[in-house]
């Protein structure tokens, strides 16, 4: 628990970062940039889990372990998505979402 900082302030910060991620996800048209916005969203979610665990249930461990799993799933998701993106770039030489029209190559 951070001395002098209440749960409201940390939750406000994580909410703002979450919605900045949403803004980026809607405006960006490049696949890698969209994936980065998803990373921001996941990060804000993990921060929320940890903060609620620390401030409201200090004896439990659920939030910490859930954030560990979020980080692991994010790593797996990023590796797979970047593999798909690199493969896609070799086939159509573009990363714009408007150029992706078919699912099977």
């Amino acid at each position, binding site marked *: *628990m951070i001395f002098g900082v209440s749960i409201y*302030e940390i939750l406000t910060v994580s*909410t*703002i970062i979450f919605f900045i991620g*949403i803004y980026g996800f809607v405006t960006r048209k490049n696949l890698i*940039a969209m994936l980065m916005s998803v990373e921001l969203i996941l990060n804000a979610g993990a921060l929320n889990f940890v903060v609620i665990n620390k*401030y409201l249930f200090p004896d439990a461990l659920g939030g910490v372990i859930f954030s*560990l799993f979020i980080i692991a799933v994010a790593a797996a998701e*990023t590796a797979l998505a970047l593999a798909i993106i690199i493969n896609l770039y070799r086939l159509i030489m573009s990363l714009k979402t408007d150029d992706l029209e078919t699912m099977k190559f």
Partner: protein
Amino acid sequence: MERIIFYIISVLMITFAVMAVSNRNLMRSIIYLLFVLLGTAAIYFMIEFYFLGAVQLTVYAGGIIVLYVNSVMLVEKINNPLPEVNSKRRLLAGIISTAGAALTITAILSYNFVHIAESKATETNIDKVGKALLNYGDKGYILPFEVISILLLAAMAGAIAIAKTNKLKKNNESK
């Protein structure tokens, strides 16, 4: 003192997050994302979850950012800026995200969280986290732990298989 440090970190995190989603140079926005992730790790350290902060630093700030930098260098010319987003789309996204943030923040501020007194808060160390992860009794997390290990293995194999598809296809055609 902690309060001032927390405010500095959060202002930096929000600024870098805005720069990460709005900069048109992809490599720069990845570095701004790195600063946001470092700020999150700093908050984890400040609320005394040292193990989680270390994992955040090594996996997120270390591994994932390097993965992004590598793939951007493979697919994009570094000095090529991304095309400009049209202002209508930007306005729409701004309205959606501002409205959502306002709604969520009012909901959070109006809810009365029951604070636990400072003295009752116990320290969480690596010891406890490790025992909880490998405990198969009550409040144990061994099943998700095993599932995540299978998931990581499958993701590794899948990433290799997907990234090499083109080469395999060419080899088959030449045979």
